[in-house]
């Protein structure tokens, strides 16, 4: 035991002291913080008020556009050719041109501008015109004004989860999707990154020929486990550093620019509200605040379960794959030969990434269930499901299967490893490796 500890220490210390580790530990959080902060600022920067000049040849829509906080409308009393020439000198950002319709109502409208008009403006104009057109057509069909205004009522769909005790909580599908995606991807990356490190470490010992010196002092299995565990600690250290540093940077930036950010965030939340329901227009936000709904959804997530299971799948997913990567490293002499053996290991991992969307679409469906039970895909697939809520028996069963597979496959890998590390020369075939496993 004492000796395994020595190996763990060496594996950990040599890696943590590497320049690449230190750079990754600093660069990662900076990038992640930037990913969280920059879009907010970009949104704020693009937040100037746009003025739209209207040239309406049809004459239907002069009154259709209400000014909002971000978009101002003004009718330009000139024809479109003049308007196109003059709009900039008249300090308009763009010209909205509604040509004379071929039939009763126009079916085409144009925006002329030197700069990109932006999603917000386009959506607003489109929905305003559609609303107006609908009203007009309904009027033409003889529908009374009361009925028309009654039709404008928007349905506000809110998803509420009920647990066994009858407690109700707001839930957000988008939030769950994002959370699951981020957690699953980080597990995937860590398994890949640190699994490969295990393989490289084994190869390094083999090619530098230090392996025989070491296994005359320590059992090959101890060496393998020491290496896998040591590298697991490196991974956990990196994760911890990332969480702490990212949190630190984000809080620092937030506290420095707190007032500005608050505005931006509120606006962001409004915008998210609109985007989730494209037919909404701005007045919907008057009915209720999406922000508070979003916040209550965040608070409703069971972070204890998420963090606990994230750490579990992070660790055991890595341990399972780490043992397999160690076996691959031991079986060959150089990195180019690893390709053939890495393939079958990485296919289930990639499968679990590819199926994230399908799992998220139906988190309780059969695909999601089976992928979260198979140990090679469960670390990623289960993480996608967890934010949506997974029955405890499934979570427990999946964890049990993963733990048992870890024990089983580490045992297999140990057998391959024990023989493989002393084999030089020809790349072994699968048949030979199978013989190594059977070899007592």
């Amino acid at each position, binding site marked *: 035991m004492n*000796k395994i500890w*020595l*190996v763990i220490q*060496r594996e950990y210390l*040599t890696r943590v002291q590497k320049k690449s580790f230190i750079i990754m530990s600093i660069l990662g959080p900076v990038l992640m913080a930037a990913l969280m902060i920059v879009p907010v600022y970009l949104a704020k920067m693009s937040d100037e008020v746009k003025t739209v000049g209207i040239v309406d040849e049809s004459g239907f829509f002069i009154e259709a556009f209400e000014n909002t906080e971000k978009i101002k409308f003004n009718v330009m009393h000139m024809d479109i050719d003049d308007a196109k020439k003059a709009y900039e000198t008249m300090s308009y950002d763009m010209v909205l041109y509604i040509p004379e319709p071929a039939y009763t109502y126009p079916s085409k409208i144009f925006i002329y501008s030197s700069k990109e008009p932006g999603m917000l403006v386009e959506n607003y104009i489109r929905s305003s015109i559609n609303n107006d057109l609908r009203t007009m057509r309904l009027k033409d069909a003889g529908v009374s004004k009361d009925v028309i205004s009654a039709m404008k009522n928007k349905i506000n769909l809110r998803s509420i989860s009920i647990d066994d005790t009858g407690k109700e909580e707001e839930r957000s599908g988008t939030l769950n999707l994002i959370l699951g995606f981020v957690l699953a991807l980080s597990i995937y990356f860590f398994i890949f990154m640190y699994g490969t490190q295990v393989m490289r470490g084994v190869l*390094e*010992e083999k090619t*530098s*020929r*230090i392996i*025989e*010196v*070491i*296994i*005359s*002092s*320590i*059992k090959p299995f101890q060496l393998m486990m020491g290496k896998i565990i040591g590298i697991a600690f490196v991974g956990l250290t990196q994760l911890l550093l990332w969480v702490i540093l990212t949190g630190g940077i984000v809080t620092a930036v937030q506290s420095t620019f707190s007032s500005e950010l608050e505005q931006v965030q509120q606006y962001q939340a409004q915008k998210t509200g609109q985007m989730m329901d494209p037919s909404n227009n701005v007045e919907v936000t008057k009915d209720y605040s999406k922000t508070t709904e979003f916040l209550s959804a965040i608070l409703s997530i069971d972070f204890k379960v998420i963090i606990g299971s994230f750490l579990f799948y992070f660790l055991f997913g890595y341990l399972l794959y780490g043992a397999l990567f160690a076996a691959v490293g031991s079986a060959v002499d150089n990195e180019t030969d690893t390709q053939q053996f890495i393939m079958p290991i990485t296919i289930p991992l990639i499968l679990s990434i590819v199926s994230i969307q399908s799992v998220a679409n139906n988190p309780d469906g059969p695909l999601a269930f089976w992928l979260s039970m198979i140990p090679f895909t469960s670390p990623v697939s289960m993480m996608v499901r967890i934010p949506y809520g997974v029955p405890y028996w499934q979570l427990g069963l999946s964890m049990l299967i993963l733990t048992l597979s870890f024990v089983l496959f580490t045992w297999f890998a140990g057998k391959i490893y024990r023989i493989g590390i*002393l084999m*030089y020369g020809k790349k072994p075939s699968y048949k030979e490796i199978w*013989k190594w496993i059977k070899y007592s």
Partner: protein
Amino acid sequence: MDLLVAENISKTFAKHRALNNVSINVPEGSIYGLLGPNGAGKTTLIRIINQITGPDTGSIILNGEPLHPNHIANIGYLPEERGLYKKMKVGEQAIYLAMLKGLSKRDAISQLKVWFEKYDIAPWWDKKVEELSKGMAQKVQFIVTILHKPKLLIFDEPFSGFDPINQELLKAEILGLRDEGATVIFSTHNMASVEEICDHIALINKSEKILEGSVSEIRDTYKKGTYELEYDGNEIILEKFLPSNFKIVEKNKITQGHRSIIKLPSPKDANELLRIMMEHTNIRLFKEIIPSMNEIFINKVTQD
């Protein structure tokens, strides 16, 4: 007393039988040479003694006890295929390897410093291994092998990679370790070194032990009763005076006088040969020809 006894060791890899019923007895305090052509099974036997692999059948007794994982601390092993972590610092790495053998960190550091001074590699303590020359890396490996003062030292082709000066240094070191009470097993192809430093040898060929014993006894057994003579005068004398059962194997003229090799029917006749020669000529050299280990080796292996 024998420090290490291997009894009827057999080991088969897939279809290849690496060792077939091999037994060796390594006397305590001896330097024991394990000889044999490539692929004979020497390294397999050494790996079994080091508990890197287990034998299919047979047993190993070390110091009176069956081989046990705790014995690792009593064995120092320098494998033929040896290396170090390239990216690790020399000192750090030596400490790590010494600690794996069971030394405390403090002991490891203090003893390593002494050895590093002795071998003139102290300035390299904080350098990375990849900056070392091959010879220096070999020195580090040698130091680490013997640092924990093991009772049994096993060297697999220890001289490969050393220049002649360092080979002598290493040889002296091995003899010194033996004198301090260590038992040394070493496997080699270098027969000259076997004659110089080995007390006992075992010859392994095609997975079987074909010869074992002390070097002097083996050479005695393999001598053919031939004697070398150098004398003044001319060779005709020999044929005239020697009895017919004294065979002249070889004769030639040298700068001063003649040289002959004569095969005697029995060692007792050596005195008779001398007496006859003394009557007729002036003897300058007389010696029994004892076969070199190299001859015995080639002889046994090709015969087999």
